[in-house]
């Protein structure tokens, strides 16, 4: 039985905002299927009533004081932007005509 289908791989690639070709979809399907099949060995373990570990240290929310702080200077931030104009980052049209 396959764990992940070609269609699912394309769906996941879309969720992850990755463009993939038919050829890539085929390779990734095989590889991901092997990895997921391997991962299913976790089902050998009974984890009823086992609490999940999201974080290894016994830590609660860490808050800083709610005070104003200066952000990064705009001209610095724009230095790495692929395209910008009038102090704003520029992207292709979001809303169609």
């Amino acid at each position, binding site marked *: 039985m396959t764990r*992940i289908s070609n269609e*699912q*791989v394309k769906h*996941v*690639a*879309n*969720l*992850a*905002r*990755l*463009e*993939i070709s038919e050829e890539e979809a085929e390779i*990734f399907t095989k*590889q*991901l299927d*092997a*990895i*997921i099949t*391997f*991962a*299913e*060995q*976790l*089902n*050998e*373990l009974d*984890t009823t009533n*086992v*609490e*999940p*570990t*999201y*974080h*290894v*240290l016994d*830590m609660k929310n*860490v808050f*800083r004081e709610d005070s104003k702080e200066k952000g*990064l200077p705009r001209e*610095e*931030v724009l*230095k*790495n*932007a*692929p*395209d910008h104009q009038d102090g704003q*980052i520029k*992207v*292709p*049209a*979001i809303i*169609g005509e």
Partner: protein
Amino acid sequence: MSLFDYKVSDLHELLHKKELKVADLVDESYKRIAQVDGKVQAFLTLDEEKARQTANSLDVKLNANPASNLLFGMPIGIKDNIVTKGLRTTCASKILENFNPIYDATVVQKLQQQETVTIGKLNMDEFAMGSSNENSHYQKTRNPWDLDRVPGGSSGGSAASVAAGEVLFSLGSDTGGSIRQPAAFCGVVGLKPTYGRVSRFGLVAFASSLDQIGPITRTIEDNAYLLQAISGLDPMDSTSANVDVPNFVSALTGDVKGLKIAVPKEYLGEGVTETVRQSVLDALKVLEKQGAVWEEVSLPHSKYALAAYYLLSSSEASANLARFDGVRYGYRTPNADNLLDLYKKSRAEGFGDEVKRRIMLGTFALSSGYYDAYYKKAQQVRTLIKKDFEDVFEKYDVIIGPTTPTPAFKIGENIDDPLTMYVNDILTIPVNLAGVPGISVPCGFDNGLPLGLQIIGKHFDEKTIYRVAHAFEQATDYHKQKPGL
């Protein structure tokens, strides 16, 4: 004889007595790089002009006043996923080819306070995903002990540069073994600190609940000094721990009398070569002679660590790497008609295959309908793995085993099958899942290839790890051997 055969404390003394200048140390680095980096290919970016300027101004300072910091003037290499202001930081990915950070990581700021000199940025697997440096977009770093073999990964450049004598020491990062495995393959010392010991601010995140920055050095003493410099609570990283930073070097007493060592039978089992197994048993004999005692124990959930790790680290990576969208920084496709197209094409053209594979695995594991079966299940298994360590540490001071099942493999040998490549990390991954500290120390050779001994400690007990590692180092001379480059 290289200047980098000396320890930090010896070099400091020479600087202090004016028998050595910082400019000499920096010169040693760049001379050696010019000599061997064409073969080793450890560096992605050099910062030579600035490093030489810094060296000169430090020398002026040194003439006026004795150096107050032990690390004053010491040349260091930084893994290319740690951001350095104004110095290109690529994560060995095409997507960050022209990225110049506008701030320094906390560890880099701390090094600046110590007045170290940054020599350059070191190659790695793209976004730290890999065990061989073959996943770098730019170049394949070679193992200085055998140029046909991998240096390990993902901190392959960090380990190879130290082994090749290009820098005195370096910083790497470790998510599933990325400091310890290359340290073992290259015959140097590499520590993954306790999760939370070192700030992750400015470390480009791969798997946030597992990543730690750590030192790669020639000796245990240097390792302890470098960890001292980068440790501590950081308001910029809410997961950095509010615990005291002890004096790590004070642990190097050489005394291991009565120390209780646990040796997990799972770490000497299937897949571990006979030579590797024997090197660990020999190391245990060395420690036994000095008064330590060891017993076999079991970490029963070890075999599930790999599967849990790939689900968890890939899930976290899929979220962390969402920021690379071609909008604010990094690579942007020239062929996009609309915004969605821009995201998809920039990411498809900017990321390599291993990164894409893990983003997709993570997206799948977190997606609706699969979350409980994969992601949550893996988090529950993580609890069991963590509990294994807690149980053993109730009775023992450290856990010892090999760092890797085999010595360095040949370039190209494992590249076609992601799963075989993953098996390399089977002995290091449980340590990250449990969040405990672990070190790799040179412990032998297999046909001229270095082997590493892994010493694992309790949460925030790097001191005991260093004490054991130092006692072992003092009784052996593996760390004194150098590759014949």
